[in-house]
């Protein structure tokens, strides 16, 4: 007999109220949650979307976060007494925009932001997965900006001074000297943010984004069985996070080569 035959046979017994062993029941529920009707493909699709959304949101978040952090640091670091240059005049409103952005995004729940984006701003959009990715990216940017800002501020001001004293301009000094060192310092915090982002993609299913939890939800509604789909989804997230943590560790070891003595 094939697995499918056992499944059909034991399931019939269970539906008739007959006695099955613990392992027979376990097998039936497992088969039903993952194998019956090729349901594993739905989880796989969900994982694909989850990873895609995470990647897009991460890119948006890192770019936004860096921009906001650089603007806010540049604004805080300017020295009084050099008059109003065009750069300074521009920096003031930019800084204000950045502060409003971080305040609003960090001050409202992720779920509410998703619902506002999905049901109000992009009401007529059919591509809810991308709307979700955009929302997550904007949300993540606010947190990343604070992480990056912390990294930029933690660096010895002497590094900036040394760069500038050699005749490099502000942007060159940031690009070659300050940001690479700050990046190394903030990598653990950034990894943390990435993990949170990966798991927050599960919220997308409230606006109908077709990610991993959405797949599990669909299966639960068909089979009236919650434990196996939910455990399966939890396990998938756990494995994804563990893989990522391992990759991050490798990157950290590589960046640490200048520390050897």
């Amino acid at each position: 007999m094939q697995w499918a035959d056992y499944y059909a046979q034991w399931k019939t017994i269970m539906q008739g109220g007959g006695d099955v062993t613990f392992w027979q029941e376990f097998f039936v529920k497992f088969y039903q949650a993952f194998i019956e009707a090729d349901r594993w493909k739905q989880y796989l699709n969900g994982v694909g979307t989850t990873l895609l959304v995470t990647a897009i949101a991460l890119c948006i978040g890192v770019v936004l976060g860096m921009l906001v952090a650089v603007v806010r640091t540049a604004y805080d670091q300017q020295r009084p007494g050099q008059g109003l240059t065009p750069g300074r005049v521009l920096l003031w409103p930019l800084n204000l925009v950045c502060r409003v952005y971080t305040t609003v995004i960090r001050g409202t729940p992720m779920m509410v932001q998703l619902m506002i984006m999905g049901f109000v701003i992009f009401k007529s959009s059919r591509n809810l997965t991308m709307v979700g990715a955009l929302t997550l990216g904007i949300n993540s940017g606010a947190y990343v900006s604070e992480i990056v800002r912390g990294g930029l501020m933690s660096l010895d001001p002497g590094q900036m001074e040394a760069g500038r004293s050699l005749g490099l301009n502000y942007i060159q000094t940031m690009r070659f000297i300050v940001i690479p060192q700050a990046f190394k310092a903030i990598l653990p915090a950034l990894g943390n943010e990435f993990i949170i982002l990966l798991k927050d993609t599960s919220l997308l299913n409230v606006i109908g984004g077709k990610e991993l939890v959405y797949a599990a939800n669909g299966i639960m509604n068909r089979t009236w069985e919650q434990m196996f789909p939910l455990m399966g989804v939890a396990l998938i997230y756990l494995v994804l996070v563990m893989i990522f943590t391992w990759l991050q560790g490798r990157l950290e070891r590589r960046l640490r080569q200048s520390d050897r003595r």
Partner: protein
Amino acid sequence: MIDVQNLSKSFGDHLVLDNISEHIHPGEKVVVIGPSGSGKSTFLRCLNLLETPTSGSITFEGKEITDPKADINAIRRQMGMVFQHFNLFPNMTIRKNITLAPVQTKLMGQAEADDTATALLRRVNLEEKADAYPAQLSGGQKQRIAIVRALAMKPKLMLFDEPTSALDPEMVGEVLEVMKELAQEGMTMVVVTHEMGFAREVGTRVLFMDEGHILEQDEPRAFFDRPKEPRTIEFLSKVL
């Protein structure tokens, strides 16, 4: 070479430099000494605008650098600076530390900058450290690298901000030796230091600063042998 007119600098309510006027001629080795908090470092840092003066003007080779329109990056390329805490870039090899600025400011191509770095490293006997990272060097080695990093930009003037104050006593000598050689080659130097021996031996002029003023100045022999101001006499009696 540098002309300082009525320079004042305050941090908040605290007046650090009080109306200083001074002129530094080409080839001079000006040594600035004085007690902590007297404004020596601030004075030096104003010269390349790492500190923005509150009032007054600074002119470098005929160009007023305190003018908001002055290209401060172009001016700083002609002034090297050496810091108390070296400020080498820990994420780069020694070679990269030296070549970064000349290449990025388009003073040299990468190949020429590499050759310059090799030549400069040979000069301070640290050729074999080209591919090491700063964390692998001793304090004295770091400071010698910091000096040649500044020299790679071919500056017309070198500013030294307490270059030996963060070093183990054993390593002070090797750094002063490099500075002496530099002085003998005719480099214009402004040095803030507590090394009275260096001031006496290498300096062409000694400035004594206290509470934001240049209280007294003279050529080193006269300065150390016959100080005039009571505050100078008191300071020298403690440090010599």
